[in-house]
């Protein structure tokens, strides 16, 4: 038979103010881990949701992203008539040749950021069927117009409908705003492909091709056909795979998570241990009394572990509220968070704290409480009643 849980709960409550520093450090560890996990999962969600499983990305062999690839007009003209590519109502292949450059743009804050500028043709809106123009209209070819991803609006100087955005060697008039279900297209600026290639002085007109595989067609056969063509040295992969690989770059954030959250976690664990050592010290006579009344060592150990766990849970609750408030505050004050991906372009990510992020932080706090409480609880359980009572 063990001591009632209310015994541990009331002891935590009785010391709540004295324990507040420990609770604060545990809360900090919770905030640090939950926010970083939320950043990582938000970034991954954004990148992974960008790809469509029906689309293929075609790049020069050896390029791992749009920015480092290049493609000739001849290759584009040949590939678009391959079998297995979907066609629109007019019978045209649904193929979007694209030019990607990463110019720097001056942010409203004055700093310069690399933005992903995607040169496209009208077919882009068919291939990327989740991209919708939500304000204004699509740009007209060869007229120096741009359509902005919703995430960039207001972030860069001139990034508003009707204003002019400066990058490359010219200014681009903003004629439309596009949304793409929170995916990374919302971090991009779309302009005419030919205009972008000439402005950026590129020897080739395109970086790569996005195309829609026809319903019922053999996707793998199409991939082989593209990759095996001896004229062009290309590779093709599903768009979902392409963005999943881009998301891998976010793994470097895990390092940051470990570097920041783990030391705070260790500090919190030491804080919890210190708090519990103080509790054992202050309650030596009480422990001796319980042992004298006949309670076993295991009972004492459990009661003190439960207390340490309780302190950690209060810390978790404070930290969880803090995390949600912080995420809401970041969203309200700073808007989306700019991530510089492996390609050096800025991805704009809406920070969203998910249940999984909080669950991981909960486990972290619980581990802090239990590991931090183990040694003090062990010491309490080892006290011999005759020695503990002598302190009275």
């Amino acid at each position, binding site marked *: 038979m063990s001591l009632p849980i209310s015994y541990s709960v*009331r*002891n935590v409550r009785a010391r709540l103010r004295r324990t507040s520093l420990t609770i604060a450090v545990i809360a900090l560890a919770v905030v640090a881990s939950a926010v970083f996990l939320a950043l990582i999962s938000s970034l991954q969600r954004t990148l992974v949701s960008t790809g469509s499983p029906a689309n293929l990305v075609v790049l020069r062999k050896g390029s791992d992203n749009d920015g480092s690839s290049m493609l000739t007009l001849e290759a584009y003209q040949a590939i678009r008539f391959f079998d297995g590519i979907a066609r629109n109502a007019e019978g045209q292949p649904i193929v979007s040749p694209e030019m990607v450059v990463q110019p720097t743009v001056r942010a409203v804050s004055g700093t310069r950021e690399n933005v992903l500028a995607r040169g496209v043709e009208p077919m882009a809106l068919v291939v990327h069927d989740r991209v919708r123009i939500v304000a204004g209209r699509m740009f007209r070819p060869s007229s120096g117009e741009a359509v902005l991803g919703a995430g960039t609006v207001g972030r860069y100087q001139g990034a508003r409908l009707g204003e002019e955005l400066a990058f490359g060697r010219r200014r681009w008039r903003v004629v439309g705003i596009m949304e793409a279900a929170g995916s990374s297209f919302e971090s991009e600026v779309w302009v005419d492909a030919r205009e972008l290639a000439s402005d950026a002085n590129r020897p080739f007109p395109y970086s790569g091709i996005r195309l829609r595989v026809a319903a019922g067609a053999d996707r793998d056969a199409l991939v082989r056909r593209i990759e095996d063509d001896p004229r062009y040295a290309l590779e093709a992969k599903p768009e979902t795979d392409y963005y999943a690989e881009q998301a891998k770059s976010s793994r470097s954030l895990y390092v940051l998570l470990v570097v920041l959250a783990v030391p705070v976690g260790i500090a919190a664990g030491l804080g919890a241990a210190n708090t519990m050592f103080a509790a054992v010290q202050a309650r030596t006579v009480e422990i001796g009394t319980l042992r004298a*009344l006949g309670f076993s*060592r295991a009972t004492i150990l459990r009661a003190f572990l439960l207390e340490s766990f309780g302190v950690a849970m209060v810390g978790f609750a404070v930290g969880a509220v803090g995390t949600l408030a912080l995420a809401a505050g970041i969203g309200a004050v700073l808007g989306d968070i700019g991530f510089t991906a492996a390609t050096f372009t800025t991805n704009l990510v809406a920070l969203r704290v998910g249940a999984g992020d909080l669950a991981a932080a909960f486990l972290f706090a619980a581990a802090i409480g239990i590991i931090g409480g183990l040694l003090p609880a062990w010491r309490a359980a080892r006290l011999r009643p*005759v020695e503990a009572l002598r302190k009275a």
Partner: protein
Amino acid sequence: MPEPLIALRDVSRVYRRGADDVHALEHVSLTIAGGLFAALMGPSGSGKSTLLNLLSGIDRPSGGDVVVAGKRLNDLSEDALARWRSRHVGLIFQFYNLIPVLSALENVELPLLLTALDRRERLARARLALDVVGLGARAAHAPAELSGGEQQRVAIARAIVTDPDLIIADEPTGDLDARNADQILRLLLELSHELQKTVVMVTHDPRASEWVDIVFHLEKGVLKETYAGGAGKARAPATGGPP
């Protein structure tokens, strides 16, 4: 003459303090019959509390036998001693040793958590014990809300709630004024004479000898003298009290 509840044979207790051996008790032999109210008296450092700890199984002797309620305590492990105490001994301390975060009722219920009783039975018994010590109305109060005398009565209720054979009291009146001390001594006497509990008490209080049946006088770890107390001489009526 009833069977002795307590039998000590040639009991010694030696502590190591640094390089020195401290002989807290030397070759003490005594028996205490069931239902007696006994006092262990003597100056500070005479070994009274050591003897009390050995009787209650809180400590173990360095030599000799300690047999209480038919059980030889020498060989029991810490946890086995704890289990034995929970069944056979009620403990009363000088500074009451109540658990501050628990109410009076919960403090009294505490030893019953080690029994098979369900919660309803435990609370009923705890209430009864509080009624016995006259504190039924204060059941919901925290120890800090009670006077010293009241706290000690709660501690007595906690000691008797499991219906133990032996009640051990370490200076139960040491922290109380004369009026409260008398109340506590009367209560202990009633437990002994009316409920047939064996009560062994360590005390410095010279007046206490008037309340008990028998006094064991120790000096420097040696049992010097055994004599009848006031209650023993008179075997006072049930209401108790010094002659």
